[in-house]
């Protein structure tokens, strides 16, 4: 019989391999945020107030490009649209819980925590009466504390990294690696190609609206490719 404690520890254990992959991203984010001109305090606070790696990387790039606040906020919304999908698929499992649990687990709902938690909820050999929300909490908190510490370390060490290292190049490379992982089928590839071409063509538009335009064109082309 699983207890809250055993569920919590199992959640942490399941998250461990992902933490290895997340740590370098936290370090890179911390260093890049400083380079983009974001002061150390707000850069660190972003990791707990926003707590979304991809949105933080995108915001960092937009900050350094001098994009206005409205563009940063709208881009954050676009980048985080996938969380609505996660939210929908978690909803039936969290329905019996008290509101405090729903709010807490929503705050901790990252790509990495969602991936292991939804797998656990879907596991058939597990008794349905198990307190699985403790598993979600364990996975979420493991990721949260790793993200906070690796970000802080990146901010501390980042200031000492010489510019000749061109650390800012790690950002497009990070996106490239994440892009590869997202190319799961042909329609996804079509969406990426269309968005990439649009981004280049729209680069001269003001306020970097080209990014949002590219995302919308990519989504439309993805849908079109799926129907063929």
């Amino acid at each position, binding site marked *: 019989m699983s207890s809250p404690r055993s569920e919590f520890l199992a959640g942490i254990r399941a998250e461990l391999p992902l933490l290895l992959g997340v740590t*370098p991203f936290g370090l*890179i984010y911390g260093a890049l945020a400083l380079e983009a001109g974001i002061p150390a305090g*707000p850069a660190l*606070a*972003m990791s707990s*107030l*926003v*707590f*979304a790696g991809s*949105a933080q990387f*995108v*915001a960092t790039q937009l900050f350094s490009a001098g994009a206005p*606040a409205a563009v940063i*906020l709208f881009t*954050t*919304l676009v*980048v*985080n*649209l996938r*969380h*609505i*999908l996660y*939210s929908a698929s*978690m*909803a039936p499992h969290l*329905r019996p819980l008290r509101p405090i649990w729903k709010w807490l687990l*929503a705050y901790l*709902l990252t790509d990495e925590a969602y991936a292991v938690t939804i797998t656990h909820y879907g596991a058939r050999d597990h008794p349905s009466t198990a307190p699985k929300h403790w598993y979600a909490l364990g996975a979420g908190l493991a990721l949260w504390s790793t993200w906070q510490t690796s970000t802080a370390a990146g901010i501390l060490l980042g200031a000492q990294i010489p510019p*000749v*290292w*061109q650390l800012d190049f*790690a950002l*497009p*490379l990070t*996106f*490239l*690696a*994440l*892009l*590869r*992982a997202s190319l799961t089928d042909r329609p996804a*590839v079509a*969406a*990426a190609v*269309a*968005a*990439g071409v649009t*981004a*280049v063509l729209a*680069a001269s538009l003001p306020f970097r609206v*080209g*990014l949002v335009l*590219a*995302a*919308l064109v*990519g*989504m439309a*082309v*993805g*849908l079109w490719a799926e129907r063929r």
Partner: protein
Amino acid sequence: MTPWLVIGGMGVITFATRLSLILLAGRVTLPAIVWRAMRFVAPAVLAALVVSPILQPAGTLDLSAGNERLLAATLAGIVAWRANNALLTIGLGMAALWILQWVRP
């Protein structure tokens, strides 16, 4: 606009997307096409974020061999496609840029 206001706004927006349907499940329904389009958000946004700083490092399109970042990213792209390994992609991409800089100062 101070960074604090932007970061606070980003936090509210991010939390709202995560809480949205956990809280509203059963009370709102979205058109099916919205659900189907959402899985293309990640590849589209990421592709747009990759191409601009690599193809247009100084603001204008630069497809010449003098664009060291394009050369390094092409290598990283091949590694990413074959290995699908984030750390390997980033590590080899950075190493390629450093070597290119060192060979052609």
